[in-house]
């Protein structure tokens, strides 16, 4: 920070255009060039600022995941899930810098895997030709990978060792997520096939969801969750934290979807982002209300936890294509997402797959639904291709994360001893309890 900073306006660069005599008459061409330079500068700033401001909002989702999960796990595992959330975010970001980005954005390619090197480092200066600061783009991409990892942590909470989980985060953020990401956003084979996934219903949320599903199956349910063919609810520690987390995620999602427009530097882009914001809001709202109504009809009471999941479900559902100009469509898409939540929660319980926070219904099921919805509601995209994307990415992620979990399991086992699990991971893994005052 400096005092009395020199006043450097936009268009400083445009000055160089007029090398010739200042008093000469200007032609239309010269003038267009001069204005284009100025507007190019301005667009560069807008686009860069979009990446940064929206990326920061997405980053804050990490706090949302932390609070949501802390609210949904039992008190004896709260400190552990907090630590997992703040460290997974740190680790995912570092790994994405070291390895992941190079895999996900390998430059021109249209195949399955490519690679542009370790330790992402763009030129230091402002590359005007790109239209945005490359580092701002990196920042925005980086915050996405942490989201995928956060999805996993909630599902497998309360019964996985800290360092094993973090090992999984390393593999997910360095390799697995970037590979499928490269297929579409990196310009790989899927992008060629006219698959569409605007901000990542499939590429981010379903990938996280599949990883979580495979993890939940391999690790198994928490002790006492399914006994004698009965589901025993293991209520979480704090509904205020879970609700706060949901609000923060909702907030962060505007960065997620809005920033995925990737440009703010023209009225068309700004207007598109406005539509995206409206879509994002109203789909979540519809998801919330729909989940509440289903809960009221199914149980005669409203289940707050399902309403919170309904918000997330509505958000994930619209993420694949939040660009409708008729808001009835996102209302419908979100509402269906909200309806899917209670039913898939029940289905998982029937299958004895223990998902502590409901991440699989919200991120995987609604991720699939949202991706399909693009095929239904947009004229330009077909259900077939959308299915192709869903299935190919799903298949790859299931196999890859299956291997990852398997390999990590070799190092002393993913799961703590029964006794440690019973005592809670805060005692056995961390040695610090969530509310440690009188203990």
């Amino acid at each position, binding site marked *: 920070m400096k005092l009395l900073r020199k006043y450097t306006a936009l268009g400083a660069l445009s000055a160089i255009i007029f090398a010739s005599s200042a008093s000469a008459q200007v032609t239309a061409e010269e003038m267009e060039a001069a204005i284009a330079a100025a507007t190019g500068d301005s667009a560069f700033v807008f686009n860069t600022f979009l990446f940064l401001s929206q990326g920061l909002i997405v980053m804050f989702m990490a706090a949302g995941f932390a609070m949501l999960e802390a609210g949904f796990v039992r008190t004896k595992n709260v400190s552990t899930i907090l630590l997992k959330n703040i460290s997974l975010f740190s680790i995912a970001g570092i790994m994405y810098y070291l390895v992941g980005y190079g895999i996900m954005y390998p430059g021109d390619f249209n195949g399955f895997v490519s690679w542009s090197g370790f330790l992402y480092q763009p030129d230091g200066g402002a590359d005007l030709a790109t239209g945005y600061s490359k580092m701002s783009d990196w920042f925005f991409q980086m915050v996405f990978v942490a989201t995928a990892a956060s999805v996993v942590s909630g599902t497998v909470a309360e019964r996985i060792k800290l360092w094993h989980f973090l090992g999984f985060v390393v593999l997910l953020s360095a390799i697995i997520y970037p590979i499928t990401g490269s297929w579409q956003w990196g310009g790989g084979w899927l992008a060629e096939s006219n698959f569409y996934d605007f901000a990542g219903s499939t590429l981010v949320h379903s990938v996280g969801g599949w990883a979580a599903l495979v993890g939940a199956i391999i690790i198994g349910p928490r002790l006492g969750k399914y006994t004698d063919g009965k*589901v*025993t*609810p293991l*209520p*979480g520690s704090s509904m205020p934290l879970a609700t706060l987390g949901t609000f923060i995620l909702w907030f962060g999602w505007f960065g997620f979807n809005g920033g995925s427009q990737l440009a703010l530097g023209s009225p068309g882009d700004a207007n598109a982002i406005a539509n995206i914001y409206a879509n994002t809001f109203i789909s979540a709202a519809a998801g919330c209300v729909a989940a509440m109504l289903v*809960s009221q009809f*199914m*149980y005669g*009471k409203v*289940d707050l*936890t*399902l309403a919170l999941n309904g918000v997330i479900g509505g958000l994930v559902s619209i993420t694949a294509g939040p660009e409708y100009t008729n808001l009835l469509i996102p209302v419908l898409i979100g509402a269906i997402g909200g309806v899917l939540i*209670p039913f898939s*929660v*029940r289905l998982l*319980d029937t299958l004895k797959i223990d998902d502590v926070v*409901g991440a699989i219904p919200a991120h995987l099921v609604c991720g699939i639904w949202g991706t399909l919805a693009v095929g239904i509601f947009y004229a330009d995209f077909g259900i077939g291709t959308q299915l192709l994307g869903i299935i190919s990415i799903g298949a790859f992620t299931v196999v890859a994360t299956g291997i990852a979990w398997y390999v990590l399991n070799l190092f002393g086992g993913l799961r703590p001893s029964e006794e440690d699990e019973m005592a809670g991971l805060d005692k056995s893994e961390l040695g610090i309890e969530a509310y440690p005052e009188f203990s």
Partner: protein
Amino acid sequence: MKLVRAIIKPFKLEDVRGALTDLGIAGMTVAEVKGYGRQKGQTEIYRGAEYAVAFVPKLQLDIVVGDDMVEKVVEAIVSNAATGKIGDGKVFVLDCHGATRIRTGEVGDAAL
């Protein structure tokens, strides 16, 4: 000397305390407990799974009193904690062989 233990509905605390004060009872110790009995907790629902909550929040009052006061104390509790609905709670009486006031070392009734 007796220890009178009352398990009551939480919102009845003030009434009971008032009645005991009127009897000249100057001290008691209260714990938040969970009661299991005829009164069942309501059915709760969590993530789409219903479950009966077996335990209901209660307050447990432990009051040590001289033998002569026991009857009056029990009576005051019963009449002030009753709502007539299931779950009003119980009063138990246990023997107490001695009391000491930590501050002064006084023992017996003088310690209460």
